[in-house]
Structure formats: C-alpha cells, structure tokens
C-alpha cells in the first residue's frame, strides 16, 4: 500500500495540485491548491487564503479528493481526505507561511498569497492513477549519507571541531555550498553566527533576532522552515534594509555583516534542540530554485538532533574543570609598537585602534581577560572562573560560555593576529598576547 511519506515529492509544488470538493446540493467544485504540506503519515495541510467555494464546501461537507503528481515520475495520485481543523498560528502555520511567501514571490503575487490558516486534513486513502516508473525514482540513499555524517560528528573533541565537522559534512555529504551555524541566545532573543562555509566573508559574530527571516522564524517557532523560491518576506538582508536601526534591539550586533547570499532562491533552517531548548539553528541556502527537498529537511533535522547531543556532550561541566592557578606570564618583550585597545562599557564593545572587534558578552569577556593579563600578567584561564567572576557578572546559568569563547577565538583569529585564544584542556584556555597593549576604558 502506498504511504504518504513516499509522495512527499508531489508536495513540492512543481506540478500544481488540485482539490475536488462537493457542496450539500451535490454540485462538485474543483480548484488549484497553492500548497500541500506534509504534516505526518496520516495528515496533510492545505493553505487557507480566501473564503472561497472550496472552503465553504469543506466546512459543510468535509470529504475532499486531491489530485497530486510526482515531479520526477509524473505519476498522478488521488488522495481521499477529510477536513479536520484549521490552525491559525504555531509552528505548522509559520512553516506554511514561509513556503507560501516563496511561491507568492515566484509568481509575483505577494499581495494575493496571504495565509489565513493551515487547514488540516486526514488522509483516508491513496490511489495511484498509473504505475510510477521505478527507473525514474531517485537513486540517492539518504540513510547512508546520514550515517556518514553522524560518524563524522563522533570524532569531535570540542565544540570548535564539532562545528567544523558539521559544515564539512554538509559540503561533502549533501553537496551544500552555503551553510551557517548560529548559536541561540534565548535571553536576548537572538542568534549569533559561529561557523559558516561558502561565503566571501565568514560573518562570524553577526547576529539575527528571533522571528526575523527564515533563520529567525525557525528559532522562534522551533520548527524547520524551508522556502523553495526567493521570498522577500524571508530575505534577511532585505528585511534588514527595511528595518530602521532603532527598531532593532540595541544589543544586536550590526557592525559585523550578515554573510548570507543576497538573493537566495532556496533556504532551509532547522532548529538544533535539546529537550525543546533551542541551542542553535543550522541554515543552508542556495542560488538554485527548489534546491532542498523534504528529504533534505529530514536529513538536516536528524543531523541537528545529533549536533544537539554532541553540543551537550562537549560542554565542559564545571565539575570537570578546575579553577586554575593564576599563572604569571614568563617575561617576554612583546614585539612591535604599542596597540591601543578601547572598551566601551555601555555595550561591551571592543576596538583595536579604530577597528571594531566585538561587543556584548564576548566583548566583556575579552576586556576582562585583557585586564587580568595587564594587571596580573595572567595568561591561563578557566571557563569556571569566568562563570564565577563578579566583575563579569555573567547570567547565573550561561550555558553558552563555551560558544561565546569560541566566537571570540574566531573573531580574534580573523581580526587581530596578535591576541589569540588557545584551548589548553577541557574548560581551560591560554591567552596569547604578542604586542604591548594600552587598555582604555570608556563609558
């Protein structure tokens, strides 16, 4: 018997689906469907955009029949469905809204394609109108690819390796050209970029508020968001352009440019969740229309689950790390001329001479490390002491300390070759300073 999962390619919208309904007087109606969305093995959802005849009919007679077609085999299928309910908000609604925005933008009908609700139908039966040609079915084996990706993640010894392996796995296993990983800062309702691949500028440290674009929507609703066509409402760069700076959160990083494609045709963002807590968002994009399928969405969702487990595994527990003994730096004359490091306490931003480096929690950490280095000659630090440091006043439970240090490490590697952070063990690291510094603190 055919299963709904086997037909998900039909829901990509390449060949439009149609729905037949019937009013209580027995008059049939047939109409195009903007989007058929796979919900689970027994349910699909259709977009509710207008109170049209189809909608009036299903409210009075919930029996309907859908005609769908596979874009690869061109095989047609009839689905007998029963209207159950409408959802007007939540993850499913947001996911369909994003997809609809892509379709609307492709057909130039942004003002017409507004989602009022997601109509949920139970699928009662599936009938093939002809046999699909087996030779035309895709030969790609997603399970094998997934297994290989999962094996790679197991090799990671720390978060930095984990994130790099994730990106290289996406590139090699799924031939994805552009990808990024953004860590969630739930308290500030934003995400910060820690790893990217396939961009001219790495964009590490750039931030996206929850709810904004495909990435922000995936974070806010903790649901995968997949768009198969360029959609203005989900183009982060264009959203940013339209958004007056004052409307952005004051703490939002705006000096580091978002690295993503200016005109992505396909976008897929998947939340990385640990027991429903948002750790990160994995994002891939492409210049190609309909680059990502349901199968890719499944693959990335599985990968995100694995990623979450490893992120938790590799966060050093405080019990495992020790408060390291303050170590005095061996006497060594730093090379070159003195460099001015300016710190602005109002937003914890740090500048190297005139060049912006970082702000926020990572900026505050850097300033604290440099101050301890300058005052006490310390170079060896532990995560635990930073967590307990009253001068830093980090939130009591900041599980992101490790990723913030990683972000800082990456920004320094890109922007400041004479100050580097190197891991020396689980939960401990070394500050390597190779120039004489002049620290200046301003309000």
């Amino acid at each position, binding site marked *: 018997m055919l299963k709904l999962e086997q037909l998900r390619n039909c829901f990509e919208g390449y060949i439009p689906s149609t729905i*037949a309904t019937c009013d209580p007087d*027995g008059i049939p109606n047939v109409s195009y469907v903007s989007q058929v969305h796979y919900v689970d093995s027994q349910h699909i959802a259709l977009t509710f955009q*207008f109170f049209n005849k189809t909608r009036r009919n299903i409210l009075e007679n919930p029996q309907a029949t859908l005609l769908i077609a596979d874009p*690869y085999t061109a095989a047609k299928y009839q689905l007998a469905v029963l209207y159950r309910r409408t959802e007007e908000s939540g993850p499913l609604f947001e996911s369909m809204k994003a997809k609809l925005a892509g379709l609307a933008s492709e057909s130039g009908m942004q003002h017409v394609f507004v989602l009022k609700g997601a109509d949920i139908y139970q699928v009662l039966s599936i009938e093939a109108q002809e046999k699909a040609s087996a030779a035309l079915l895709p030969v790609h084996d997603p399970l094998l690819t997934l297994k290989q990706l999962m094996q790679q993640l197991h090799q990671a010894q720390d978060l930095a390796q984990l994130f790099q392996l994730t990106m290289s796995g996406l590139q090699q296993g799924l031939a994805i050209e552009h990808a990024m990983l953004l860590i969630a800062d739930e308290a500030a309702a934003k995400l910060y970029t820690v790893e990217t691949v396939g961009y001219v500028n790495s964009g590490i440290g750039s931030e996206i508020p929850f709810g904004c674009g495909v990435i922000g929507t995936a974070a806010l609703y903790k649901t995968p968001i997949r768009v198969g066509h360029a959609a203005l409402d989900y183009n982060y760069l264009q959203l940013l352009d339209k958004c007056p700076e004052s409307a952005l959160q004051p703490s939002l990083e705006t000096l580091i440019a978002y690295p993503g494609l200016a005109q992505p045709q396909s976008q897929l963002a998947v939340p990385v969740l640990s027991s429903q807590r948002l750790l990160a968002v994995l994002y891939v994009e492409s210049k190609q229309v309909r680059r990502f399928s349901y199968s890719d969405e499944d693959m990335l969702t599985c990968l995100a689950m694995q990623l979450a487990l490893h992120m938790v595994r590799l966060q050093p527990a405080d019990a495992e790390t020790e408060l390291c003994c303050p170590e005095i730096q061996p006497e060594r004359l730093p090379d070159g001329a003195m460099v001015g490091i300016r710190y602005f306490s109002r937003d914890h931003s740090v500048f190297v001479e005139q060049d912006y480096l970082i702000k926020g929690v990572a900026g505050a950490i850097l300033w604290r490390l440099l101050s301890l280095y300058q005052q006490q000659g310390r170079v060896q630090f532990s995560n635990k002491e930073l967590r307990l440091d009253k001068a830093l006043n980090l939130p009591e439970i900041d599980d992101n300390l490790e990723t913030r240090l990683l972000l800082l490490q990456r920004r320094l590697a890109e922007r400041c070759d004479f100050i580097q952070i190197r891991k020396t063990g689980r939960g401990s690291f070394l500050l390597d300073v190779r120039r004489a510094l002049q620290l200046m603190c301003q309000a």
Partner: protein
Amino acid sequence: MVIVLNQDLQDFIHQGLSITAASRDPRLIPSISKALACQVLPDIGAIRLFVNKVQAGQLLADIVSSQRIAVTYCLPSSHKTIQIKGRHAKQTELLPGDLEHTQQYVQRLCEDLESMGYDPDTIRRYLHVDPEELAAISFMPDSIFEQSPGENAGEPMELS
C-alpha cells in the same frame, strides 16, 4: 439553466490549457482527474472533454450516477483560470479526429509550459496521450466562475 459560451471563452478554452475535472458519487465524495483536451460544440453548446479512461476511472463512474461535473481551465503562463460547471455529463463515443485533436491540444499546452521553463520530458510524461485509453465526456455548461488567483476567484463570470 444551460448557458452558451461566448466567443472569447470558446477561444480561451480552445488554446491548449491545463484542464482538471471533478464529479462526485451518491455519498457526495468527490472524484478528480486531469483532462487532456476539450472541444466546444457551438451548435448545441455542449463541451466535450478528453480523458485517459484509466486515470479518470472514478470520475467516469461518478458521472453515470450524478451527471454533474466541474472543470477548471488554466493557462499556466498567465495563471488565467476559469471553472465551468455543468450537468448532463456522460461518457460518449470517440469520433474520427478526436485523437489528433487531443494530441494537438496537448502539444499547445506543452509549448506553454516549456516557455515557463518546465522540463519537457516531465510534462510529456504527465500529459501523455495513450490512444488505447482515450475516452470522451460531454456535458452542458450551466455556470462559469472566475478562478484566477486573487480576491475575485470564485465570482460568477458575466457572459455578455
């Protein structure tokens, strides 16, 4: 009430459109199928549809009992879509020239779809005309609705 399609509508539905037909059984459960081509018989006002009788098996069974049919006609490149509803629907004999008419109609639709960038192989498989499985349906139109995407979708169309 039976209506007669004006010349503009006749020209529209003759140009090579994507056609989908629906009917329903005695329990009001709908059936649906692609139609490959259509033809207006101007003298009596009837519309003929050409379908694959395997794919349209349930639809052909349902029109026997209900005699009701609803048909959408869409020109993909412009999104212009109308729906024609009708009664007295029945399967009719194929006539000489029906196969050629259907093949030419499908060819015009394929050209429109190709102009939009659709893969030619996919659309030819999708709209394949099998001479062994061709069947004809005729019906008398009784109402016409605008169905192009937008707020006016579903509005009855003026025929004058």
